[in-house]
């Protein structure tokens, strides 16, 4: 019963949404690209999409400058 977030193994929590996971991981950056098992999760769906057990989550944050 675990998931992988940015290469780190963490506990899986039943019915946890992407928003809740980001909060639990203390990823406070407002701007991120999130992929679950290589599928992009749209920002508008963060509060609805539930993170499945055994999934691999990748979180990338954007930093201004270009």
């Amino acid at each position, binding site marked *: 019963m675990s998931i992988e977030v940015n290469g780190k193994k963490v506990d899986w929590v039943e019915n946890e949404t992407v928003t809740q996971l980001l909060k639990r991981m203390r990823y406070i950056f407002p*701007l*991120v690209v999130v992929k679950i098992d290589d599928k992009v999760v749209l*920002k508008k769906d963060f509060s609805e999409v539930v993170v499945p057990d055994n999934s691999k989550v990748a979180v*990338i*944050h954007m*930093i*201004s*400058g270009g």
Partner: protein
Amino acid sequence: MNVEKAERIKKKLKESSVGIAGLGGLGSNAAVALARAGIGRLVLVDFDKVEESNLTRQYYFIDQIGKNKVDALKENIEKINPKVKIEIINQKLLKGSMEEPFKDVDVVIESLDSAETKATFIEEILTKLPDKPIVAASGVAGYGHSDRIATKRLGKLYMCYDEDAHSSDDDVLMAPRVAIMANWEANLALEIILGEDK
């Protein structure tokens, strides 16, 4: 020099295209690197004009201040490699249709400035053009710490990434680090087009 390899690369690049979103420090330098390398076609998108403050790191000249960046960069590239076909789009990318200019290119380079626009752009390309490789950069500000930069790959997204860098809102943008990231992006685009250099 490996003549056979050079010829193979030349032919492949000539028939390839790259779209560049944003012609600031990242985009202008990446475009010039790709033009020198021999890319066949570039699609250049920006809505800004060249300002004096841009000259600290962007590929423009004093006598181009006030010109549209798309026109100025086209001029500069034509002086380096007139064989590159250049399409310019002088407009702001708007949420909802950001992928439009890039439907027809082999690789997209994200070289926008604000974190929010970057995230929105990447999300639109990944969802609306799911087969399109996109190269993006995050964490260009400051100086030094070249070794913190790494490539992070997530499916079709290739991030040139320094997660410990500060936002440019609270830091400085300087030519060396911006150019490293810009050339890193161009180098990734070449690798995607040509395959791994073995």
